[in-house]
């Protein structure tokens, strides 16, 4: 217990000792004051441009994209992107399928079956020959082509789905082969599966009903956890930081809760037992609204946590370019390193909390009557 605390203390001490160096190492204050107003203005605009560039870079990282770019190098005109294209599947009065490499990193106009398409800020628009987009399409999604593309996020979902299928399929098989003892990588995942069962499912749902919900709880837990962890790798994916995906997960939870709910659950929503009749009428719409707010808060929590984590991490990495010296870069490296460790914790914690709350909602849906009696 003592050993693991020491490096942390060391890192904190190192951080504080580096701080004054950074303040001294920045010569900008004096030099800018002596230059003429003209150059000062230029400096500001140059600096402003750089800040905007970084903000755009971070924004770009958070968005979904039609191709998979691993990294880029070079300056503006001769910038090279290393990655691989993904299929673009569009429905615009007919099916259009082509490779995302034809967009040439969102700069080119693609012609497919007499229709023209271009990408602006990660969204595909249909346009005319010269690349002019109908201005209504920017505000009205119905004017855009329907986009079923295998984007970066969809690709990562498929990868994680396949990974989970192979991992847990293998784990299940190894039980059969090995007389009920897990083998290989399954030995790592078995305690986590048992943790989900014993610490999340059984306490919240109860011994009697937990089994039918286990498949969903385990899928959601590992799906979110794996995607959160992939988000921390240099692959640059941000799947759980996409509100559509967290919303889809929450809607599945909502549907399962309400479809499997028993009489007792609906009784508590529309005709709350144990309160005066007038209050029951007042409580019914509030409780009904509550069922919708629950999945909504699930959505927002996971999405906001992951987006906030990514923004903070990338901002700290971008600080290297702001400081532009050895001490500052070292400072932001150490800070980013410590924060990455925190993010690993958050990745697991968010998966845990999402699963835990899902189990809590399932528990309320299949609660027996005698449980409630104790509360009154």
């Amino acid at each position, binding site marked *: 217990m003592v050993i693991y605390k020491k490096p942390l203390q060391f890192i904190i001490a190192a951080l504080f000792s580096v701080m004054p160096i950074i303040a001294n190492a920045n010569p900008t204050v004096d030099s800018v004051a002596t230059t003429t107003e003209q150059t000062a203005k230029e400096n500001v605009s140059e600096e402003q441009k750089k800040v905007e560039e970084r903000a755009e870079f971070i924004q770009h990282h958070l968005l979904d994209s039609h191709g998979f770019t691993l990294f880029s190098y070079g300056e503006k005109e001769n910038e090279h992107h290393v990655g691989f294209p993904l299929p673009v599947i569009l429905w615009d009065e007919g099916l259009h399928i082509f490779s995302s490499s034809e967009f040439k990193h969102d700069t080119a106009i693609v012609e497919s079956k007499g229709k023209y398409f271009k990408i602006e800020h990660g969204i595909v628009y249909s346009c005319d020959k010269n690349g002019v987009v109908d201005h209504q399409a920017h505000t009205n999604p119905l004017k855009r082509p329907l986009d079923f593309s295998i984007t970066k996020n969809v690709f990562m979902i498929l990868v994680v789905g396949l990974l989970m299928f192979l991992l847990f399929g293998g784990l299940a098989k190894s039980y059969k082969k090995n007389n009920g003892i897990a083998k290989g990588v399954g030995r790592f995942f078995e305690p986590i599966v048992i943790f989900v069962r014993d*610490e999340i499912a059984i*306490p919240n749902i109860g011994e009697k009903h937990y089994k039918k919900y286990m498949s969903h709880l385990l899928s959601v837990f590992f799906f979110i956890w794996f995607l959160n962890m992939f988000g921390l790798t240099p692959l640059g994916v941000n799947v759980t930081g996409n509100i559509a995906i967290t919303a889809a997960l929450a809607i599945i939870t909502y549907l399962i809760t309400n479809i499997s709910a028993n009489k007792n659950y609906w009784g508590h929503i529309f005709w709350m037992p144990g309160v005066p009749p007038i209050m029951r009428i007042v409580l019914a719409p509030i409780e009904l609204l509550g069922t919708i707010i629950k999945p*909504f*808060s*699930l959505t*927002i*929590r996971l999405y*906001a*946590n992951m987006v*906030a984590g990514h923004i903070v991490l990338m901002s700290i990495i971008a600080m290297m370019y702001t400081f532009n010296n050895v001490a500052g870069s070292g400072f932001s490296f150490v800070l980013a390193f410590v924060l990455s460790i925190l993010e690993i914790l958050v990745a697991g*914690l968010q998966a*845990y*909390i999402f699963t*835990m*709350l899902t189990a*809590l909602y399932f528990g309320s849906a299949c609660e027996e009557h005698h449980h409630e009696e104790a509360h009154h």
Partner: protein
Amino acid sequence: MGTIPNLVGAGLIVIGAGLGIGKIGGSAMDAIARQPEASGKIQTAMLIAAALIEGIGFAAFFMGK
């Protein structure tokens, strides 16, 4: 960027959420100090309560933005 009332409102809610989570954490610490053997259960309850408040805080943050 939202309008100033939006930002102020979001800020107030975030302050409230921060105070709430702080209080939950403090109470959980007290409870664990009193009953160290129940620390697992207390931690779970603490995380659920903190997560519920955090959801509101984030919602306010994104609406204000």
